[in-house]
């Protein structure tokens, strides 16, 4: 069992007092056809849930949120709200500040969690069975709605616990394990068969899924951080494994005082700030492009600055130098970006001392699982239509396994929406097959 770790440093989210909540909820204008709702990938009826907070119906508020977004509690912590709902708020002007939608959503979903409210019920059994490969955000969202439709659900999860990146991959001061697991438990309470520590392709065959189930949803996410491809690579920590270890144990033995993080995405920020909070004194981000090219959200970048992270731009790692099995230095070459391409400047190398290197240069694709299911993919990105249907009849996909840069976002809230859409498509698919009265 995973122990409940205590992680140094408080949550970045302040708990609002009832009075603060009331003032903020009452500040909401209750816009009609509200821009915040349009900006939310899961289309939560935000004016409605805020009005429900204001009128003292916190359960109704949580229902409004979770109805649209089964991961509403996680999203209240990890959503880039300034890019979504709060960015679209009519009060997001030079002279005003947007309604703190994320904070209010956290208040309502926290109340549901703390008071152990059971909000949804399973639908009458349809006799149809759906396999979900992966118990992360997309899989959980799909499972919740499939159970509400009344279909039997079996979740195959490779890890010990459900929740995927929410449980293992997002820093604890942003999203605690409790919240991720509560959301999973809400879905399990609707009656799901969960097979943890089961890897499709290894422990069960892909064929057995398509044979034994009426439909399959592929929500397996992505894999590990790929190798840096430089000498000394074996000494680099995988950022996600690092965060997982920090989150599950509250420590990272052998991290040392000087930490180098390669990459500039949101996972890199998580690794950087996590290392800093674990006690590393100098934590530096190295990125081969410029500040303006950082894939991380601006607010994440700002957060890293506040946490005391150092930044080095236009440098690419060349080798990790070790002595007696311990990292001592990392060598970089300076880069220039020309025509969008990164090029190393000849004879520009420099060496920085460091005790640990963490790589956050993206995630590899789970090619083996995808190919075993026989669905068409583009370099490991499962190809789906708008209804989350893959090339194979009865097989659907959602979440990070369909994430493609410039096409879809790798956000929890997107995974939640895709899971919902996949569940709806599966329901329609099963209805067409049987032509039953329960067809929506």
């Amino acid at each position: 069992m995973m122990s409940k770790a205590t992680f140094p440093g408080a949550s970045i989210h302040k708990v609002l007092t009832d009075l603060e909540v009331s003032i903020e909820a009452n500040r909401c204008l209750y816009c009609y056809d509200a821009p915040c709702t349009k900006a939310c990938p899961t289309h939560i009826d935000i004016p409605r849930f805020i009005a429900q907070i204001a009128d003292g119906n916190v359960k109704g508020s949580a229902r409004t949120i979770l109805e649209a977004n089964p991961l509403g509690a996680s999203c209240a912590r990890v959503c880039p709200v300034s890019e979504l709902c709060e960015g679209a708020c009519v009060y997001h002007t030079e002279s005003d500040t947007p309604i703190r939608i994320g904070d209010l959503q956290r208040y309502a979903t926290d109340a549901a969690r703390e008071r152990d409210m059971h909000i949804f019920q399973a639908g009458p059994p349809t006799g149809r069975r759906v396999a979900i490969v992966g118990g992360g955000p997309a899989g959980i969202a799909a499972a919740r709605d499939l159970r509400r439709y009344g279909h039997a659900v079996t979740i195959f999860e490779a890890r010990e616990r459900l929740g995927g990146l929410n449980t293992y991959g997002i820093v604890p001061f942003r999203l605690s394990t409790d919240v991720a697991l509560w959301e999973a438990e809400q879905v399990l309470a609707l009656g799901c068969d969960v097979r943890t520590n089961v890897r499709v392709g290894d422990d069960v065959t892909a064929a057995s899924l398509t044979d034994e189930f009426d439909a399959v949803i592929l929500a397996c996410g992505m894999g590990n951080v790929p190798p840096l491809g430089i000498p000394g690579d074996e000494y680099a920590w995988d950022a996600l494994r690092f965060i997982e270890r920090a989150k599950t144990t509250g420590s990272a033995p052998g991290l040392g005082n000087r930490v180098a993080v390669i990459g500039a995405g949101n996972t890199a920020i998580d690794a950087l700030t996590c290392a800093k909070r674990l006690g590393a004194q100098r934590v530096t981000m190295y990125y081969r492009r410029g500040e303006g090219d950082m894939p991380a959200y601006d607010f994440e970048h700002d957060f890293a600055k506040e946490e005391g992270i150092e930044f080095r731009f236009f440098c690419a790692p060349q080798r990790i130098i070790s002595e007696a099995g311990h990292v001592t230095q990392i060598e970089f070459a300076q880069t220039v970006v020309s025509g969008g391409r990164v090029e190393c400047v000849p004879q520009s190398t420099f060496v920085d001392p460091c005790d640990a290197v963490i790589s956050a240069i993206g995630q590899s694709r789970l090619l083996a699982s995808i190919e075993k299911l026989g669905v068409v993919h583009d370099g490991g990105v499962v190809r789906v239509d708008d209804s989350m249907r893959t090339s194979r009849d009865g097989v659907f996909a959602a979440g990070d396994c369909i994430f493609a840069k410039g096409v879809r976002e790798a956000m929890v809230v997107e995974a939640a929406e895709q899971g919902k859409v996949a569940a709806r498509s599966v329901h329609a698919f099963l209805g067409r097959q049987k032509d039953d009265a329960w067809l929506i």
Partner: protein
Amino acid sequence: MADLTSNLAGIESPNPFWLASAPPTNSGYQVQRAFEQGWGGVVWKTLGTPIVNVTSRFAGFNYREHRMVGMNNIELITDRPLDENLKEIAACKRLFPDRAIVASLMEVCEREPWHELVKRVQEVDIDGFELNFGCPHGMSERGMGAAVGQHPDLIERVTSYVKEASRVPVIVKLTPNVTDVRFPARGAARGGADAISLINTINSVMGVDLETWNPIPHVDGKSSHGGYCGPAVKPIALNMVSDCARDPEVRVPISGIGGVETWRDAVEFLLLGATNVQVCTAVMHSGFRIVREMIDGLRDYLDAKGLASVRDLVGRSRQTITTWENLNLNYKIVAEVDQSRCIHCNKCYIACEDAAHQCIDRVARGNDGTYDLVVDAEHCVGCNLCMMVCPVDCIDMIRVDENLASQSWKERSAAIVSSRA
């Protein structure tokens, strides 16, 4: 600088801001503090046969995050001995001889007790009496307060008793808990009242606790109706003041009461015909110091308007209130949205669509999903609703009837009748 001195039926005060008979005027200590801040006059908390109060006496009516938009109370008249009150009144008068001190009185409806009370109180140097015919709770169950104020004949009779004994002007305070306030006002005038003051508080139940199902406030699980006051009652008070100010049978000066919180509120009462105003809830909310802003605001307003005296305001809008049949049917305004200030909350759109005349259209600017809120001026009835709900004041009502002569319903009906004749 404009002159703020005020004279209500012979009662002079350095400004028109008085404290109403209520908890803030309960003691000499409070009245001295009030006078130190600048209040022009006070109506001392009602004197009469001392009573016993209950605890848990007030409740606030909050609207969203605004506290005490309304307030109610079930406190009774003074619970301190008459001699103590009179000693303190005398002390206050000595310390602040230029201020008005009016004693509010309540008694059973018989001549002798009233005469006795009036004579005892006017032994101290009082400037006037205010007869409490308005208190809607508790005292009314004992045949006093609003129980008198709801019977014009009783008002007339008791007022005349007081006038028989009083050496100073007598103000009659009216209850709003009647169908038409002009009838009790006329009773007061017939009884010889020198002035009337209105409104007293409105019968109210403030709320019910959703957990315990007890009333709010409750006294050990029970409550009785209380008197409602505060900013929320101002429109009701203005209407009643206006009714009395325009009534040819009332014809006495008016002290306006009901939701006055700022100099602006006071000016509205004066314009509709009040000679001065009395304040309570605003002081209960923020203390006596608010009178400083009231004095400054009123003086600056008069100066800006070029008026020499606050008396020049009294009744200036009295004739603007009339009956519906006299309103110009040809007057037409329509809404206009200032697109540069619109934040696209769509509150005007949904208000018009669901509750008015479906005259605001969402017109796409292009293909980017943005749109403007555009008023269908041809069908807009000028109801003001969109302007009222707009949170950023970007909707103006524009007059569009320039070339039409005024015609009221009364005139139009008459014209129709004569054309048929």
